[in-house]
């Protein structure tokens, strides 16, 4: 492996976003194949994910690694687009906490784990209105929508988002996963969601099964 790739991998393994960015830029200067760069980063983030599962790494490692990757990824992605090649991600995800709800910790974890697994994740934050989800799905060509709600008073908002997807003719294009403290399996079924899990690691399994990869 070239030195740049090795440094890129290491910067993520060491949760160093500044260095990840630096080596992403350097990789382009040095004309390294961007697909290879992505592969190196994914390898690192997978390693962190594995460590987390085994109890050798912890939540701050996971989120720190994902943050470092998120800083470098757009730089490499731009280069991939420029060269007109295709990157293999597990799938494009749009995620957010529903309107009226500002709880963010669980949703951030789910996003970090999905990125670590190899999904391309667009976290659009908290207090997200139905039309904002739709816009993000359109803009990013998302296949999976992750909805999080922590309150029984905001859980019904998920129903609205799904109804809105139907109205906009997008329901068949995206799989909808729901979760968060206020959500139960029964509720998820009732509102016609495609997937649910009570945990963030479980969310990854659900996402994989939804895209069949």
């Amino acid at each position, binding site marked *: 492996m070239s030195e740049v790739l090795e440094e890129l991998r290491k910067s993520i393994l060491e949760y160093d976003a500044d260095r990840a960015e630096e080596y992403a830029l350097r990789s382009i200067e040095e004309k390294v194949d961007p697909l290879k760069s992505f592969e190196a980063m994914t390898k690192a983030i997978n390693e962190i994910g594995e460590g987390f599962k085994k*109890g050798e790494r*912890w*939540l*701050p490692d996971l989120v720190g690694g994902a943050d470092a990757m998120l800083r470098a990824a757009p730089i490499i992605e731009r280069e991939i687009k420029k060269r007109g090649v295709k990157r293999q991600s597990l799938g494009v995800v749009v995620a957010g906490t529903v309107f*009226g709800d*500002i709880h963010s*910790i*669980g949703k951030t*974890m789910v996003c970090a784990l999905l990125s670590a697994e190899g999904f391309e994740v667009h976290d659009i934050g908290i*207090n997200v209105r139905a039309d904002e989800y739709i816009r993000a799905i359109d803009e990013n060509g998302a296949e999976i929508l992750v909805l999080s709600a922590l309150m*029984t*008073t905001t859980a*019904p908002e998920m129903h609205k988002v799904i109804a809105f997807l139907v109205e906009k003719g997008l329901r068949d294009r995206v799989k909808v996963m729901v979760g968060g*403290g206020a959500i139960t399996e029964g509720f998820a079924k009732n509102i016609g969601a495609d997937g649910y899990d009570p*945990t*963030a690691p479980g969310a990854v399994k659900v996402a994989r099964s939804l895209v069949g990869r």
Partner: protein
Amino acid sequence: MTRGFRRRFRPLELLSEEQCNEVHHGMLEVLEKTGVLVDHERALDLFRDKGCRVDFDNKRVRMPSYIVEEALQKAPAVFTVRARDGKDDIVIGGDTVYFTLFPGMDTVDLDTWEPRSPTLREHNEYIALSDALPNCHFLACYPYFGYKGVPEVLKILEGIAVKLRNTTMVQTCCYSHGCERFTVRMVEAIEGMEAMGATHSAPPLSFSREMVDTYFTYLEADFPLWIGGGPVLGGTTPVTIAGSMVVSNAEMVAAVVLSELIRPGARVMVHDYALPINMRTGSPDFGAIEAVMHQAVFNQTWRRYGIPAVSTNAGPVSSKKIDFQCGYEKAFAAFSAAISGVNVIQFSGGLYGELAAHPLQAILDDDIAGMVGRYLEGVSVNADTMALDLIEDVGPIPGNYVGRAHTREWWQREFFTPKAADRLPLPEWLKTGKKDCLDYARERLEELLSTHKPKRLADEQEEKIEGIMREAREYYRKKGLIGDSEWKEYMAIIESDEYPYSR
């Protein structure tokens, strides 16, 4: 007036004077440099008019320290909240310590330990029980979050009505979907009575629009405020206790500044509810010792500001059952908060992480509160309690103190007797069915519910409350926030004999 407990000794101080100053200056620096996000035009205008630096584009308010100090001065150190019945008035502040019921959302099934929505009867009974418990002095938000069959948007309001009907104690009103407009009217409908309004910050360093609305609504109606945060160490604040303290104090102080701008002299108390994040699951670790320490430091700093401090950490636990872990998590937190200078402990009945509460737990907690209260009242040392004459009179063996007048006179003042603890000698325990504290709690629950009848609302008060509830139901129904089938189920309850009192 409800006396509560009195702390008779100097509170425990975890920080040195110097450390306390550092945390204070850190807080001032954060408010001046980083500031807070306030998503509310009217509030931003208020801050600007007062002399704060307001960045309207980013909704950021930065506060010079003189404005902060002035607001802290304005808030009263001690204040009264009037109850429906004068005997239940509370005077918050100073060395008084009160215990409240803890706001668990649901009840739990004692066989499966799974939370479930309580029935109207269970809700009524729980509040009636709290009215009977000697060491429950007033009520926090919820419990429960309404009852089964009530649409989401009305759960807070129906819960407030349940509390009005089943206890004469002061209660605290939470908010959702702008229900404060009805809450305020319900409270005002009962002449002379007050309630506390719950308001919050959103860590880190933010105030959402709905939250700020509640500050205005409650303060304009002259409600005293119960202000809370909910920082997660390593999640929404620095992972260190000192760093987290700076952020949570900055939020609470900003909330006090806002309150005193809206209504100078506003009665406010602030709560600490800081929990370490679990580095595997991301959930807050309820009952953690770091939360207990955070609270102690919080109490120390707010005593310095002369504003009453509330503990929330002692109410919820990580355990899902009423068990050993639940017991030690609660006892540790309540005891430490009490001896480090807190004024209110939000406590009884709470089980896992605010999600559940149970009357049996409330009965067991009432004993913890009683023990803590006994400790707070301290040791009285005088000629009477030292009893030198008596000691001389009794002398060595075969003398004893059991039948002496001094013993009869003093023992009930000196000893706290828990109501649901097993304190039998082994042979008697073996012979009487090997009962444990949960068995005793069950018996006590039955006994209290059958003997204690809380004072109901007078007919014309009841009419007013029900009138406002009817209006609220129509209002949310018209807004489209209650579906047809939900409405049907709801109405079936409202029209049943169970409503509103269940008996």
